[in-house]
């Protein structure tokens, strides 16, 4: 069972959260005219074995978006921050 340490609510069960998206993906600049950056942004993802950053939503809690480090191999949970406070 995954337990996530929400910066607002504290340590909570995974069932209170929903997975959002890959948090390592950055949107290309709006004036980007090449197709490949947009193709990668929309469709292509790495499939890392180990630590990965993900967006999770604390939907049954404070309703904040979080950036969470999760080990895809062990489900170990690392740092968890409010997405609004994460700088690129």
């Amino acid at each position, binding site marked *: 069972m995954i337990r996530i340490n929400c910066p607002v609510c*504290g340590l909570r*069960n995974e069932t209170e959260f929903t997975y959002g998206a890959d948090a390592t993906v950055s949107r290309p600049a709006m004036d980007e005219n090449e197709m490949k950056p947009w193709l990668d942004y929309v469709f292509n993802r790495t499939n890392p074995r180990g630590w990965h950053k993900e967006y999770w939503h604390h939907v049954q809690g404070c309703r904040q978006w979080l950036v969470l480090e999760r080990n895809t191999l062990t489900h170990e949970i690392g740092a968890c921050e409010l997405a609004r406070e994460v700088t690129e």
Partner: protein
Amino acid sequence: MAEVLSPLKSKCVAGHHGASEKSGLKMGTRALSGLWQIAGWDDFESAAQPVLSSLGLKDGGTFRIAQHADGATAWRIAPDRILIETADPNLENAPELMKLDLSHARSVITLEGPSSRDLLSQLVAIDVTPMAFKPGEFFQTGIHHVGVLIHCLNSDRFDILVPGTWASSVWEALYENALPHGVETLEVA
């Protein structure tokens, strides 16, 4: 004008249910005097302060402990959001805030009795023992996959704020799990 009825009106019929030899808890509802959510942006603290001060509240409190003043209770539900129960929110002096009237969007389920904590521990994945969940504290979590706010009023009394559209479902989840404890349902006041 249409009369506003509690979504729990049909549930709150006085009676005793479940284990006949004991009454572990009482379930009921109460009317909200008025429920407002205020929200803001980067300058939320300073924008919210005049509203809180006018209600006699020192500040927005913490994410864990509710703030009380005469006729007002405030729950800090997110970094830039506070839920306030009050009949008179006096929000005119806060133009920078987003104000949302939730008075008819939430219902309150009241729990009281020695088995209240036992019932909650069956339904939420949070430590609700007296040492971990003390009077004055609150938390937001899910019951029956519905987001709720549970406020501990004293050692065995709790208010559960539930979205009105899901109040009936949450009531039934609580009620079904309360039956082995013996439950007394209270008439709507």
